[in-house]
Every structure is written in C-alpha cells, then in structure tokens.
C-alpha cells in the first residue's frame, strides 16, 4: 500500500508529467497541423539569435538579414497575405539557452514558423528541440556534419555544408607548380563543430600533393591566449598555416603571435574571421591583413541578380559598401527566401507539409544561388569561394576558373608590408 505522502507526491509528479505531455501535444498539434492563420493576423516567425556572447557579431548580422527579408516580403504584401512578424530572442551564444528559447517560442508564443540560430554549435540543439514539436527549421549557419548526422528530418541548411568550404583553397594550393608549392603545412583548429571538420579535408588534399604535415593540433574553444600554441606552430617552420578559427579573436591572436615570433609563412588561411570585413581590419590592421585568405559561400559583389538587389537594399539601409556586407546577412536572407517559397508552394503554414516539400528535391533560387536539399537537409548546390585581403581590399581569388576571381597574392607578404 502506498503511504499518503508518497501517494500525493506520485500524483503530483504524474500530474506534472501529464500536463507537460499535454502541452507538448498541444504545441505539436498547433505547430504541425494548423497550417492556417486567421485573416488579418500576421504570420509569426520565431528566431533565437546570439545578440550577446561569443557569436554576437554574427548574430547581429543574421538579425539584419532576417529583418531585411521580412521588410521586403511585407512590402510585397506579406506571406499569403499575412504580414511577417519576427519574434527574435537572444540566446547569448549559449547552446542551452537556445533550446529554452525555441521551446518558449513554440509552446508559449505559438509562433507559426521558425528560423535557425547562428553557428552549428547552437543549431544542433535548436533543431532537436524544434523537431520535437514537428516544426521545420530552415537555417543558414549550421553546416557542420554533426547537424546532419543527428537523424533529424526537419533541418534545412541553405549554406554549403562546411566540409566543402575549403575545397577551392586546397585544390588551388595543390595545383601550384611544385617549385612554388609549400613543402610543409601546419594545421591548428578550435574544437568547434564549424571549424574542426574543415581541416582534415584540406590536409588530405595537401598531403596527396606532397605537402608534409609538420604540426596538427586541436585546442579547446575556451582558450583565450594563443601565444604558446602559435609559438609551437612557428617552431614547426611550416610554409603554409591552416587555422580553424570561428571568429576574429582567434585569427588575430595567432597573427599577432606569429608577427611577434618573426614567423612569416608563405600562406595563411583561416576558416573564419577574415571574412568579417572592416571588423577584421580594425583588429589586425590593413597591412597585416595583406595575403590572409578565408573561404566563404557568398560575397557582396556576387553577380547573382537577387544578391545584387539585396546588397543594394542593405547598403541603403545600413550604409557601408557592397564588399563589406557580411555573408551572414545573405545566409539569413536566403533562409527567409526558402521558407517563403515553401509556404507559397504548400499554400499554408503547415510545418509537416513544408518539411515534405523541402525534401521533395525542389530547386529554389536564393541570394546564395540555388538551393536543393538532400534527405539530410544539406544543400550541395551552393558554390564555395576563397577570398583574400589584398592591400585593404577583400577579393575573390578562387575557384581560379571563376571569371570573377583575381590572382592570388602568393607568397603572402611579410607582416606589416
């Protein structure tokens, strides 16, 4: 026989569990199958973004991209006649807060659709949380393999998966005449899901081209002082350095330590950081930026007509120059375009229909190019580019076959030149 106290405790636990399941079921029902919105009511899109914390720079650029898209759609009458209302909350770059945010957006705020957060680190837990409610998550910054290997069917990434980002760089390096090709390379990366998967892809190609690995190391994302690691790279005397950085502090830390160690490799490429325009220049200086390379899947001078239109609107609203527009803005804008296409095609806001439609192999045009999702939600249609800072200008340098690519500045000038 159960004692009275235990009985009430058990009853309480059961009630809480049952209520939670009921709430979840209600939310799932409203999310997955409602599909219609009363006339005159806006369509609400829930987004969690890193408006503070480590990814705040990228988070704010994403916010601009989402808002630019929403403003454009609303100018044209909204989605199926409903004005778009963005419900953006900050996750402070925290993988736990992002889960709480999406749970609240769906179960409490009852948003109709969701857009993804910034970075693979946050996209994976966010997509899992959203998946439980049957919502689609179209996102623009979760291209790490870990996102696609989680067995989720609701996630759709508009950018090229990160394993493809460094391919043009690696192929260019491998194609250099043997006399010019570096003989040795050092690989050093943060243990971040965005940076780490990119490194083995490059190493494999360079090794095949006869470029010997003389240093290869992963460091924890918590590291803030890169002097000792940079000194170890410098001690390896590698002629090419491939740095897995997810932002400016890491790449600028390595560059500063390399200069202090009087270490001048022939080539330096970083997975992230140098793509952040004037921010990067402010941190490292114009002269030191000279010759630094970075991969990306979009740039402000892209000849894509949709991209040109978006860039013009961006510059009009936020100022700056086309080449200074962050790829984050375009990725966020493309998320909106893909979702808008799916809503129009399915004639409603039913997330299950949207998921089915995006898995159907349909081709969608966006500011990034063409989107076509495979069964994992990856879009391999996008193109990867490599960019390089040359005398204060951020220029596309490969694929070398692309007519918009200029000649690579190689070897990299010594620091400060």
């Amino acid at each position, binding site marked *: 026989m159960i004692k009275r106290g235990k009985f009430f405790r058990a009853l309480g636990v059961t009630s809480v569990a049952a209520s939670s399941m009921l709430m979840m079921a209600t939310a799932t029902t409203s999310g997955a199958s409602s599909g219609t919105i009363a006339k005159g009511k806006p369509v609400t899109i829930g987004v969690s973004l890193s408006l*503070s*914390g*480590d990814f*705040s*720079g990228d*988070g*704010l650029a994403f916010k601009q991209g989402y808002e630019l898209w929403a403003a454009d759609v609303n100018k044209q009458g909204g989605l199926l006649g409903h004005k778009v209302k963005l419900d953006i909350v900050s996750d402070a*770059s925290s993988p736990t807060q992002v889960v709480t945010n999406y749970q609240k957006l769906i179960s409490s705020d009852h948003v109709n659709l969701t857009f993804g957060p910034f970075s693979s680190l946050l996209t994976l837990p966010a997509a899992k949380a959203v998946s439980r409610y049957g919502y689609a998550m179209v996102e623009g910054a979760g291209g790490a393999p870990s996102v696609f290997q989680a067995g989720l069917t609701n996630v759709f990434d508009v950018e090229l998966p990160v394993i493809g980002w460094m391919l043009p760089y690696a192929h260019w390096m491998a194609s250099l005449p043997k006399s010019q090709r570096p003989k040795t390379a050092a690989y*050093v990366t943060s*243990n971040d899901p965005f940076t780490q998967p990119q490194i083995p892809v490059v190493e494999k190609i360079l090794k095949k081209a006869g470029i010997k690995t003389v240093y290869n*190391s*992963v*460091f*924890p994302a*918590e*590291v*803030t*002082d890169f*002097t*000792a*690691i940079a*000194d*170890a790279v410098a*001690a390896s005397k590698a002629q090419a350095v491939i740095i897995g950085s997810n*932002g*400016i*502090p890491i790449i*600028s*830390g390595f560059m*500063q*330590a390399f*200069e*202090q*160690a*009087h270490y001048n490799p022939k080539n330096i490429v970083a997975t992230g950081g140098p793509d*952040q325009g*004037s*921010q990067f220049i*402010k*941190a*490292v*200086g114009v002269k*030191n930026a000279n010759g630094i390379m970075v991969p990306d899947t979009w740039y402000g001078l892209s000849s894509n007509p949709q991209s040109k239109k978006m860039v013009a609107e961006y510059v009009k609203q936020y100022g700056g120059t086309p080449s200074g527009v962050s790829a984050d803005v375009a990725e966020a804008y493309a998320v909106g375009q893909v979702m808008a296409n799916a809503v129009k095609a399915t004639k409603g806001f039913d997330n299950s229909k949207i998921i089915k439609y995006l898995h159907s192999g349909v081709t969608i045009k966006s500011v990034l190019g063409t989107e076509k999702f495979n069964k994992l939600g990856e879009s391999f249609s996008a193109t990867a580019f490599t960019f390089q800072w040359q005398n204060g200008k951020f220029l596309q340098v490969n694929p070398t076959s692309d007519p918009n690519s200029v000649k690579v500045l190689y070897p990299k000038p010594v*620091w*400060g030149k």
Partner: protein
Amino acid sequence: MNSSALIHALIDGVLTGSVYALMATGLTLIFGVMDIINIAQGILVILGAYLSYALSVHWGIDPFVGLLITIPTLFVVGIVIEWAFIRRLKGPEKTAMSILVTYAVSLLIEGALNMIFTVNNVQIQTWYVNRSFEIFGIWIPYIYVFGFILAAVLLSALYYILYRTRFGASVRASLADQTAAALVGIDVRRVSTICFGIGVAVTAAGGMIYGATNAFNASSSYDLISRLLIIIVLGGMGSLGGALVAGMAMVTIEDIVAVAWSPVWSTMSFFLVLVLVLLVRPQGLFGKQSARTA
C-alpha cells in the same frame, strides 16, 4: 620536445600570468575585505580595455600614459558601484546575493558597452603591440614585458599600501575580522568602499594589456571572469599573494602542456592541478583554513 620551445612557453606563461594575477588581485581583495564575489570584474576589465582603446583611437594617447586617466576613472566607477549596489547587501546571504547583484551590474555595463562600441571586435594598436626583441634565439614580445613590469609595479604599490600604511593596517584588520576591526574604531564601511574602488581600479591596467593582446568586445568578459574566479580559488580567496602565484601558475601550466604535449590538454591540465590542490588544501594555496563568519 624542443627545450627552447619549453623555455619560451615558460617565459610566456610568467609574463602573461602576471597580468591575469593583476586582474584577479582586485577580485580577491574585494572578497577578502567585503565577502563580495564580484562577478562584474570581467566586464570591468573590458571597460578598462575600451577606455584605453578610446583614448588611443580618439585622442592618440598611448595606452600606458592613458592609465593616468583610466585608473582613477575606474576607481570612481568602483566607488559608485559599491555605493549604489554593494552597500545595500547585508545579512548571512550577503555573499550569495553579491553574485546575483554583481552579475546584474555586469549585464548593465555589457549592454552599455554594446550600445556605445557595438559588438564589433576591436584591439588596441600601438607600435609595441606586435613587436618583439630577441634573447638567445627567443623572441620576447614587448607588450608582455611591459605588462609584466606594469603588473609588478602595481602589485608592489598595492603591497606597500597594505603593509606599510595606516590605511593598509585597517584593511588587514578588516580582512582578519570585520567585527573586531569595527570594535577598535576602524571605519569598516569606508575601508570597504575604498577597497572596492581599488579592486576595480586595477582592472584598468589589466584591461589595457588584455585589449592590446586580444581582439575583444563586451562579450569577452565571460571568458575572463571564469579564469579570474579560478585563479582566486586556487590561490585562496582573499589572498593577494595567492592570486599572483595562481595567475602565473595557470597560464604557465597551460602553455607548457600546450607545447610539450598538446593544446587539447592545456586547459584540462590546469583544472587537474586545481582539483589536486583543493583535495589537499580546500582553502586554496594561500587561503586561511578558518572561514570568516563576519
């Protein structure tokens, strides 16, 4: 393993560690005298970095000369924070509440910095930031040497104030027992206010060096505060000497492990040392065994 690389890592560790020690000194002083865990210390370091950056960019003032402005400014900021928020904390929950209150202060300052400077990363640039000199084949960065000298001067000044002045005697008496100090006529509230001001003022120097060696924005404070708290736990909460030793130990251990073994284990190895020390000495390296109850 290259012995030159090890020596280099050791030098880097000692030079960089001294700056972390300087930042942590303020934190441990504030805890020692007031039983306040100042979570805002990290963002105050960043505030110090931004002030040096602004003076350098807008008025062309060298960051070291700028300390003549930023240190007094942050002293006043500390006094204002103590008056506005900390003084109101009383009772047995004071220490626990201080974590929440100073976290709120931290968020306020972070928000203000984001509004003023945006979230874009910046770095203090001046001629010596990227330059170095060679000794026996090892390149030593000027900025780390200057930072070490600055830390040594300021820590010596702090030591002098604490051990050679009347005010220092009051501080030490308050550190030992606030009630007894009050009973012998020491104005513990005044001592606390000034100590909070000093604890915050040293962040100006630490922030300047941090801003010259790292690209930063307001969010950089999160990485910093966790490191500073670890330093004062290892050194012993309330111990100035402990902060110095622990600050140097933290960076030196990390750097040597990164070079000799792998960066993967650098952070973990320090935490391993921390756990081992705390198993043997739960009060930290130089902390007092008996917990203060005042």
